[in-house]
């Protein structure tokens, strides 16, 4: 067992890391929900009104819901979907002759929908209040598909599908285009419009004019703001500096000492310095000098970098001394100073509209994966340092013999040297008599 305060610190750090990952995962899943929904067939506006607003609690696409559908139900639903699709195909081939291709006409819909007709909610669009024939309006391509009831079992299973909110995968085959309303006589059959999918009709979408106007206004205002910030009017800056000075002199307090924020900022700068210096060192060491002049420059650079590191250390000593004599009160509300070595953490400038251009899905994936990898490495390095400061002293100090100490050793080795991924084996070497 580890000592009490060591345990507390380790737990706090690990829990913090776990929470951070959980939060990021939550954000990703939220975003995934939205994206998946966009890529499926869009529901018509009518049913949307009756859709319960998704609150933060109702995780419809929660991958591990509390009320998980049993595999049995999933399989049944899968079979039923396939059977229905097959039936539709068969019927379509029968009635193909009689039907003409007309633009979706809506008015005759309401008269036609028999009481038993249900809106066939494909299992991929959960949460829809199945069971009402709905009208569509000629919105931007949203449409409705209907299919005649095929009996009681179907309705049961579909309501089961609603309840368990089954998702048979975002990219499962959608109900084939044009599930027709078969109840009507072919001659009077209005065409059931195709389900709107982003894939087929995405390029036809148009943003509403009001939005476009507002968005362009927004972009131009942000651009104005950022240009105004960079070219700050000297009058105003002078007036502000004057005011700050007046505040200082009027305060009647002690001389300004380093505030916690300033220490933090300075520490951040030193972090950044460390990273940049290290990167530069690696560049120099990995470059193979071609001739003696390059070698000389490389040597000078390395020595120059060494001097700069010395200066940084000196500054750090000064900071330390200042902190020690008058410990600045840490801000209770700000984020705990999460010193990450990879980023400098400079002051936040105002946002300005800038683009990040990518050219293929592969590139985007690589970019995002690398970004995540760097963040995870950051976290791992931080944990490694924490583990080193906590575990090594314990291993050194314990005078245990036998199994408990071996456990500790093995665990420490695994955590510290293998990142928790692998564990070594210990064999007792009994001397042969």
């Amino acid at each position, binding site marked *: 067992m580890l000592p009490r305060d060591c345990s507390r610190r380790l737990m706090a750090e690990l829990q913090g890391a776990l929470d951070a990952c959980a939060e990021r995962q939550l954000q990703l899943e939220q975003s995934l929900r939205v994206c998946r929904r966009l890529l499926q067939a869009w529901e018509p506006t009518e049913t949307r009104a009756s859709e319960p607003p998704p609150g933060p609690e109702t995780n419809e696409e929660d991958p591990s819901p509390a009320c998980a559908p049993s595999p049995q139900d999933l399989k049944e639903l899968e079979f039923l979907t396939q059977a229905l699709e097959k039936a539709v195909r068969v019927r379509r081939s029968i009635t193909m002759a009689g039907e003409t291709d007309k633009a979706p006409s809506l008015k005759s819909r309401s008269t036609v929908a028999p009481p038993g007709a249900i809106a066939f909610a494909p299992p991929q669009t959960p949460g829809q209040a199945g069971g009402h024939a709905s009208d569509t309006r000629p919105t931007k391509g949203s449409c409705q598909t209907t299919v005649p009831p095929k009996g009681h079992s179907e309705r049961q299973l579909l309501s089961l599908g609603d309840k368990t909110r089954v998702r048979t995968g975002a990219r499962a085959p959608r109900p084939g285009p044009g599930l027709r309303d078969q109840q009507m006589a072919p001659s009077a059959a209005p065409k059931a419009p195709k389900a709107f999918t982003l894939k087929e009709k995405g390029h036809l979408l148009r943003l509403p004019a009001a939005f476009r106007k507002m968005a362009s206004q927004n972009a131009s205002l942000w651009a104005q703001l950022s240009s105004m910030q960079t070219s700050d009017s000297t009058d105003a800056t002078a007036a502000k500096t004057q005011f700050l000075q007046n505040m200082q002199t009027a305060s009647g307090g002690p001389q300004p000492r380093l505030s916690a924020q300033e220490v933090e900022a300075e520490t951040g700068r030193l972090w950044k310095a460390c990273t940049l210096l290290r990167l530069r060192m690696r560049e120099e060491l990995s470059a193979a000098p071609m001739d003696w002049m390059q070698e000389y420059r490389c040597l000078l650079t390395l020595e120059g970098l060494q001097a700069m590191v010395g200066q940084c250390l000196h500054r750090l000593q000064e900071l330390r001394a200042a902190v020690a004599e008058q410990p600045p009160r840490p801000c209770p509300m700000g984020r705990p100073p999460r010193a990450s070595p990879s980023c400098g953490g400079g002051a936040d400038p105002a946002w300005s509209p800038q683009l990040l251009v*990518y050219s293929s899905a592969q590139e*985007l994936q690589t970019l995002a994966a690398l970004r995540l990898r760097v963040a995870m490495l950051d976290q791992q390095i931080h944990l490694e340092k924490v583990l080193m400061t906590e575990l090594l002293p314990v291993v050194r100090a314990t005078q245990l013999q036998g199994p408990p100490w071996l456990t500790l050793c093995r665990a420490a080795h695994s955590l510290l040297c293998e990142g928790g991924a692998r564990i070594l084996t210990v064999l007792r070497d009994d001397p042969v008599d």
Partner: protein
Amino acid sequence: MGRRRRPVDPAAGARAGALPEAIAALSQSLPSGPSPEIFRRAKFDRPEATPALWQLLFRVLAPLPLDNRLASLAPEVQARLVKSALRSQGYPRLALAQLPEDGSQGSRELLLALSWLLARGPVLEQMLAQTRVPLGDEMTVCQCEALASPGPPAPQVRAEDPVDVRHVQWLMGKLRFRWRQLVSSQQEQCTLLSKIHLYTSGCHGDHSLGHLSVAEAEMLRDPEGGQQLLRTLECENRRLEAVLAWRRTELVFWRWMDTVLDTCVLGVPAAASQGTFLPQIPECSGGVLELVAWELRALQEELQEAAEHRRAAWEAKAGGCGRGPEWSAVRRASREAVEKELGALRRCWEQDRDPAQPHVPHRLVRREDGAAGDRDLRAAEVIRTLRSQEACLEAVLHQLQGQCRQELARLAGALPGLIWIPPPGR
């Protein structure tokens, strides 16, 4: 200077007309900002202006997003947090620390504090940036926020029982699993995002963007949500306009604040008690300083070794070279070039505002040709930067792990009669 909407004020001169304008702009640009009347009352230290100003300061100083926990704190607690936050930022006036926290007096001091914050940095712009409505699919290149720990830990005391090291191992395993989950979720999201961009290409009004973002497509799919988005956007536009108006007219505000400061009574007692109990956070900047010190020292050792090695090699190789004039000219030129480079490197960390701005979220745009404007980032370049960062971090991690291996081997070697079989390598 500035546009004056009303006729010249006969009483106070041409400038005075701009002050109400400035204050109105300020109050509109602050979130749930107090009315301009509050500002005027505060100048005369009227007590009724105090609670609004405490609340405003809390909003300004509290980290966003303002979660329920912070928002539902009692006004006294909020006031205490404001005091502490101001002190940690180095607020010079001691009078603030002595104000009662019940909101009964001190509005002028609070007004001064607010102005102090506004004068020190682009507070309004930062607040706007934090509550911005993202219309596009955004990604920050710098991932310092990607896995940042979510704020100060919950105040409840965690179990302080001693913990078995195997529990730590288990937690580590759990963390590794979560990492893997994150990777796969991230991959999926990129695929979907890329598809959405592809399928909607060509239908955005703004040709530089070319395709819809998720937020825009979602707005089309769900018109009600779209209305909500439109309303929020409208609010943001109004606040943006207010901030721009403020920037144009703020000069007169600062002059006015000087007069407010003058009306303050000087002679605040010097020895102010700083003993108010403040909620503590477990981590203090001392710890971070130590980490930086450690890193720097490690780096220094590496550099020392490398430089000495190179210097020795150089002396051996080129020590016999002639010391002619051209040789020394070359040496001087090299020295100057290196100094210039290193000077540029130093500027990178000394100036706060990084021109590359990796922290600013960028809007993702898919273009077949990958062409990008001057201020835009190209994915290929970002990938290069990230790769070098990754390599650097991996090196650091391996070095740390190597140190641990040596140390543990030393400690375990003290125990005879055991064979330690390391796990099979990757």
